[in-house]
């Protein structure tokens, strides 16, 4: 089979992050600072990506503002001809830095929102003062005039704040909001008892999103990832494995999706040794789940196989131990009932279940007992 060129690349510039969100999507094993790709290597990778057909570059992390060369990296990305998007918590960005990013040609900013009140946001982010700082950064973003998308992760504790999140997006002048129900991969798996939304909440989120889409048509564009573990049909993960996008980790590994390292049999190429084009077209990890040869019969004979491609490989791995299995969210999966029951058990836990905060990529790291108590805003 002959894959199309990728449209989007997620560049995880660093795993460093001032926040410690319990649903962190970065892998359990974080890349160390000393192994991060340098400015020149990233610039070369951006150039290779553009030649390969990538149009959209997402600069992410960790917190990309933790990179001292962020402005240079944005300039290099624009030089390569890429549409350049910064995905940030806002922490670490200053008025001056935003002006420099504007000069460098940054196209778009995505700002994360952990909650709509300081109490909620700072508790979830594990960073005291984060919400206030974020609101300040959002005003600077508006002053520069960057187009803005607000990113919200929903879970059992903050789902009731969704209506307010739509208001905040409008107050900030955002054109878009991305509302994603928490996906349980990596670190987030440790927090299922604390974060799993109930079936009723999952339904309520769908209702609120549909209503807002109608009310705010032409004002605020809403992208939504529903809670699939209460569903009957799996999600079309990554738009299809190895069809649309690729991820580059801070140390240069190239992944078909951000959680692909949880699949033990896959091996990944590194941009330091192999060209992006070679990796995209010939890399074993990218070819592992292209097409339908890998599929179990349940998927192979299913009329939806071109729609959801058997669902999420990483979710199949996490919940059944077999990355080649039908995503157990699917009603046709033999594990479906077990997953539904488990989801309901997680969701039935009280709201006093302690959050297990993400640990930073430092060997000297200590588990934080009080959110935000061990660190202060550096910017």
């Amino acid at each position, binding site marked *: 089979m002959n894959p199309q060129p990728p449209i989007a690349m997620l560049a995880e510039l660093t795993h460093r992050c001032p926040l410690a969100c319990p649903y962190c999507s970065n892998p359990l094993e974080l890349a160390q600072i000393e192994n991060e790709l340098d400015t020149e290597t990233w610039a070369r990778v951006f150039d290779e990506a553009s030649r390969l*057909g990538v149009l959209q570059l997402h600069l992410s992390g960790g917190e990309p503002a933790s990179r001292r060369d962020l402005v240079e990296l944005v300039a290099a990305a624009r030089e390569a001809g890429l*549409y350049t998007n910064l995905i940030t918590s806002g922490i670490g960005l200053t008025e001056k830095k935003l002006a420099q990013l504007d000069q460098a040609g940054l196209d778009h900013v995505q700002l994360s929102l952990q909650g709509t009140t300081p109490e909620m946001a700072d508790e979830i982010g594990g960073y005291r003062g984060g919400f206030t700082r974020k609101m300040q950064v959002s005003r600077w973003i508006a002053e520069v005039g960057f187009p803005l998308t607000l990113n919200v992760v929903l879970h059992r504790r903050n789902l009731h704040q969704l209506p307010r999140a739509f208001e905040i997006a409008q107050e900030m002048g955002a054109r878009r909001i*991305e509302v994603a129900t928490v996906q349980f991969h990596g670190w987030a798996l440790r927090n299922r008892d604390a974060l799993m939304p109930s079936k009723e909440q999952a339904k309520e989120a769908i209702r609120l999103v549909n209503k807002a889409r109608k009310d705010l048509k032409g004002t605020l564009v809403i992208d939504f990832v529903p809670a699939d573990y209460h569903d009957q049909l799996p999600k079309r993960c990554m738009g299809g494995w190895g069809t649309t996008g690729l991820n580059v980790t801070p140390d240069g590994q190239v992944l078909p999706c951000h959680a692909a390292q949880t699949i033990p049999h896959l091996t990944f190429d590194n941009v330091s040794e192999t060209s992006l084009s070679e990796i995209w077209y010939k890399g074993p990890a990218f070819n592992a789940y292209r097409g339908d040869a890998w599929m179990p019969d349940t998927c192979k004979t299913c009329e939806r196989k071109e729609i959801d491609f058997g669902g999420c490989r990483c979710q199949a791995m996490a919940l059944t131990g077999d990355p080649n299995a039908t995503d157990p969210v699917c009603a046709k999966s033999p594990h479906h009932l077990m997953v539904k029951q488990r989801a309901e058990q997680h969701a039935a836990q009280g709201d006093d279940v302690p959050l297990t905060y993400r640990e930073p990529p430092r060997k000297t790291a200590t588990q934080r007992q009080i959110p935000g108590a061990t660190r202060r805003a550096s910017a």
Partner: protein
Amino acid sequence: MAPSDIPCLPRGVRLHYDQVRKNWMLLAPERAIPLDEVGHAILKEVDGTRSFGEITTALAEKYDAPVAQVQEDSAGFLSALKNRRFLDLVS
């Protein structure tokens, strides 16, 4: 869409010629929209100063097509972009 409306591409939305796919694209936050010849012809005229009426009259002349038809097609296309926040109207 009124003839006096002035369409413009807001910041963060731009035309881009894709050298790999040999196609014009409209790049916007989280989206890359492939444009056909008609779409590209319309957006090429959108400069933030000329009105919808002026643009469609010019297009009708250029492509020797009835103005009413050009206006209908352009309005449909531009309204769809506007609903997705890829286009602003100044009146």
